[in-house]
């Protein structure tokens, strides 16, 4: 089994942006079966105190996969065997809602690596506006399945 290298702690992925399009959010809502009208109907969202339809709680997963197409190859470059990768943990701290039309500035960094019985890596993500004021912060951990 390929051990992870602790030296990758502190490595950053290149910063990237993701422009939140209304149609992309709707596609995501349809895919997860989201029916809560606040996510789909602007008047329902406004009645609930939003200025527009917010994105669902886990929509930011699309920031990385669509906004950073090199994600898998970058993980491989960090020595992570993506064929054996499983998602272990995902955590979000919400600071303020994200609406369609927003350009989100995304940064991801490796903050922890554990080796031994479990080979795992933890990434911190910051999803912010152009001034760096965050909308959401994330922590994501992956584990490499043993052979």
């Amino acid at each position: 089994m390929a051990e992870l290298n602790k030296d990758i702690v502190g490595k950053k992925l290149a910063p990237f942006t993701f422009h939140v399009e209304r149609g992309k959010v709707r596609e995501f809502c349809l895919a997860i079966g989201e029916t809560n009208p606040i996510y789909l109907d602007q008047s329902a969202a406004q009645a609930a105190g939003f200025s527009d339809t917010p994105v669902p709680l886990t929509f930011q997963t699309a920031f990385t996969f669509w906004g950073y197409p090199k994600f898998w190859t970058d993980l491989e470059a960090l020595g992570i065997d993506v064929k054996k990768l499983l998602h272990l943990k995902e955590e979000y701290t919400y600071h303020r809602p994200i609406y369609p039309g927003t350009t989100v500035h995304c940064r991801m960094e490796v903050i922890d690596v554990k080796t031994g019985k479990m080979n795992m890596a933890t990434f911190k993500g910051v999803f912010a506006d152009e001034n760096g004021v965050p909308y959401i912060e994330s922590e994501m951990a992956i584990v490499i399945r043993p052979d």
Partner: protein
Amino acid sequence: MQRIVFNAVDEGMEIPSLKCGPITQMDLVRYAGASGDFNPIHNDAEFARSVGLNGTIAHGMYVMAQVGRMCSNWAHPLQIKWFGVKFRGMTLPGETLVMTGKVKKKKEENGEKLITVAVQAANEAGDVKVSGELVIKAD
């Protein structure tokens, strides 16, 4: 959309559950497109077997999204401060998921009325796929 009032919630209280499924391969194809996660273990059974799985498995984030749906059906999203899960088991096409949540702790901290809810997704046999917590700032 209701807002959660601190004094109206008791520890041990269950929040409204949500059922989803049976999950189909098509659901995973749609989720792959929507999220951009095209890891072939989710949509190519042959590839999945070649890396030691028995077949395709659902995206963990698809299951977290279902837990998220339950959370924001209950609490107003503007009240949601933190939401996190650990992935405990693989979800397979054909399984039906049941999302549940139970109020674990109430506390006042830095002027915020915080409610922590233990949340999970399990199949109908009770095998837990995802478990975690939701923290809301109550009124």
